[in-house]
């Protein structure tokens, strides 16, 4: 297994390098730069002054030098400062990462906690009203875009309950109850989509496994339905479900952009979108590399989890 892990880690290097070239290139291809965005609508700044500022920010260097400089900064874990705000990127990330992590983790927990039992229920009561309800809920989750659902949730919460999560992020450690109030609705919105996909996959894989010989044997042995379903069937049905959940992580991270905007949470999504809009090259590049690294790692973890779920699986 160690060899397998090592090979995967080594394979991740070209993936990350390619990602770095793509994001660096794309940012340079986009017209305008951070200074143009920063100066806003003033129109009061001359070309000479802009040139000086560009030099100060090293935006006047040839692209290959800028790239080499950035790669070196990434390797030495010193990604530099934001062009736009002047804040060190590490400081911005320290503020944004916990927000997105908390949101994604809560969404993931909510998604799985809702999806797996409903998926199993749907499968064990195939073609009954509860199955139909479960399927409708799942299809709705896949169809409703996050921005629409989020807007609806916040609007109707305000109209019907005269309540919305308190705006103005506070950290979990400073004010846990307030923090939980702030995250519950956005996590539910984000988790719903994840739950929908997971629910459908759980239903179909459990249905498949329930028709296997060993499950029939378990029934024949007179085991309790709960034991048959959850101990014998579900564990074996989980591999595709875990794969789906792993695949959904990218979608989940993309969803944070919208959900963080609607619920005014200062996470990675908002940080990245703002940086893209304002051509804050180092921030975008660092964030993209961070997300790429996270996805590569998570995919590896998902692959490794197969062996735990199915001991027959061997890594070479």
């Amino acid at each position, binding site marked *: 297994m160690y060899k397998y892990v090592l090979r995967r880690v080594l394979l991740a290097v070209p993936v990350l390098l390619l990602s770095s070239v793509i994001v660096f290139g794309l940012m340079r291809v986009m017209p*305008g*730069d951070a200074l*143009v965005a920063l100066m806003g*609508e*003033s129109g009061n700044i001359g070309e000479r002054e802009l040139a000086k500022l560009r030099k100060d920010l090293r935006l006047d260097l040839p692209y290959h030098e800028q790239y080499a400089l950035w790669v070196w900064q990434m390797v030495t874990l010193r990604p530099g400062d934001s062009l736009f705000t002047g804040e060190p990127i590490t400081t911005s990330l320290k503020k944004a990462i916990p927000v997105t992590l908390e949101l994604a983790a809560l969404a993931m927990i909510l998604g799985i906690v809702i999806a797996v039992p409903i998926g199993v229920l749907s499968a064990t009561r195939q073609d009954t009203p509860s199955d139909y309800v479960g399927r409708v809920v799942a299809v709705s989750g896949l169809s409703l875009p996050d921005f629409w659902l989020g807007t609806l949730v916040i609007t109707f919460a305000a109209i019907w309950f005269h309540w919305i999560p308190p705006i*103005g992020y506070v950290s979990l450690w400073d004010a846990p109850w307030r923090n939980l109030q702030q995250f519950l609705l956005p996590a539910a919105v984000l988790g719903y989509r994840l739950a929908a996909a997971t629910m459908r996959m759980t239903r179909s894989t459990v249905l498949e496994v329930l028709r296997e010989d060993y499950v029939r044997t378990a029934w024949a042995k007179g085991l309790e339905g709960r034991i048959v379903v959850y101990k014998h069937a579900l564990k074996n049905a989980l591999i595709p479900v875990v794969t789906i959940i792993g695949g959904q992580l990218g979608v989940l991270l993309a969803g944070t952009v919208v959900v963080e905007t609607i619920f005014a949470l*200062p996470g990675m999504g*908002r940080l990245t979108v703002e940086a893209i*809009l*304002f051509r804050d090259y180092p921030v975008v590049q660092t964030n993209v590399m961070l997300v790429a690294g996270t996805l590569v790692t998570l995919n590896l973890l998902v692959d490794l989890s197969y062996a735990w779920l199915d001991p027959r699986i061997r890594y070479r």
Partner: protein
Amino acid sequence: MPTDATGPHGVNRRQFLARTAAGLGAAAAVGAARPRRAAAASYPDWIPRSDKPGKRGGSMARPSAWDPPMLDPRMTQSVGLYQTAGLTSNRLVRYAFADEASGPSDMTLKGDLAESWQSSPDHRVWTFKLRPGVKWQNVAPLNGREFVAADVKYCFEQYAKEGVQSFNFQEIEGFETPDKHTVRIHLKTPNVFLAQNLAEPIAILFAKEVLEEDGDLKKRLIGTGPYILKEHTRKVRMVLQRNPDYFDKDRPLVDEYTILSTPDAATRLATFRTGQADILWVASPSEVETLRKTNPNVLVQSYHNTLAPFGVALAQDRPPFNDVRVRRAISMAIDRQKMVDTVFEGHGIPGWGVPYIYYTDKQPTLAQLGPWFQFKPAEAKKLLADAGHPNGFSTTLFYYEYFPQMTSEVQLVQQDLKRNLNIDVKITKLDYTTYYGRYVDNKWDGMSWGFQSGHAIGVDERTYQYLYSKSPKNFFRVNDPVLDELTLKLRQTPDVAQQRALTKKIVDREFDQALRLWMPYDNGFMVFQPHVRNAAAAALRRSDGYGSPTLARTWLDK
């Protein structure tokens, strides 16, 4: 069977269906617009100051779409900064606050850090007498030291040296500070509007010590203003705390003011609905009506814009737009009233660039904007044919969607120009940075959805800065010797009546030559919780934006 067979009256099935649908749609639009327009008209355009004595205490919050990228007033004119900076810092001169003004158009100048000011007869030397005993906020490294004339000199010199305000301050030739409470400013050329220009929301005084210690002003904002910036967490909140040493004794009245970063409009509305916010801006009458269903007691101020910030900018330094007939034809082919009625639900202005309050007392109607602003497609077509384009032509238009209705406006322009002049407009929607970079580069061809920035109040800014051919803000590429002469002359005319007459001449000339094709713009509404007093928004300075200084006089009646 042919599908385009015409019926007995020469109308085929498709045409019949299309016309019926169009008729029903128009009837519905008219029907819907009327009550909304009536509803908009029922709100006052000014909330006079409260008769009760102000009460000290409490905290106030506002959701804001704007998040300042940094705190350096030399580097940005973003409204995100000045919604805060207007309260942490002062200018030498200011406009009347909500509790002093007689109405939204009251542009009376008042002393801010200056007690009095005077210009020499030739308007080249201005003397400002500073208010004695003003202290910088009691925050390191200022620690409450006295504000003196040398601070003004230093600050204005820094503005002139670099950054977005350099053009304005570079007209200063030199300073004298004969004593610590007197500043004498020498200008290179006469300017009767210097005091007005120094009352612009962006002309705040910053602290020398911060710039010298930090090398920039990106992270700390320390001023002499009514509020101290206690917290600035980007994308979360800005917290302003009452400055106990503020020179205007007993003010401000509200202890704490929090600006919540909320990029989404639905969220901003929800924060107000649920009482998390006290002040809100809403764009349309229908939004106000929806809001009032859940919050019937809110105070609504129907805001009236005195200018439109956006219009069609033409590459008028090259064919075909260097021909005045083409510009006039385009202007006449666009149905502005339809835009006001449909896009802005009747609560909008047809569009002009120079604030009308500088040349007339009443808001102009569309009919008063001159012949080239009227919707006359047949005449427009004839004019374009006279200009040598009987079959129209193809062109491009790029824009950035500042607000959702803008896309509808752009599409209506495209539709009108195609239908009425056979001009094919290829639209490109860009992100802000791309749009802005291309627009100010001034090398583009065809058309753009042009703008003038929102921070400026004074007539000098709106005439000379935007219409003088050599001004760096001449984004519409105006190059008209008559306007050059008039705008320069206006800067040297001290008499207010003559100023108004000259401004009118400038506006008439601009309209006659169709130099900037202003487009309709919404008026919007300021909405306050029932307990908010003295926070009304005045012309060109909304209290949620560049007009934030007025909140120093706000109090909470609860």
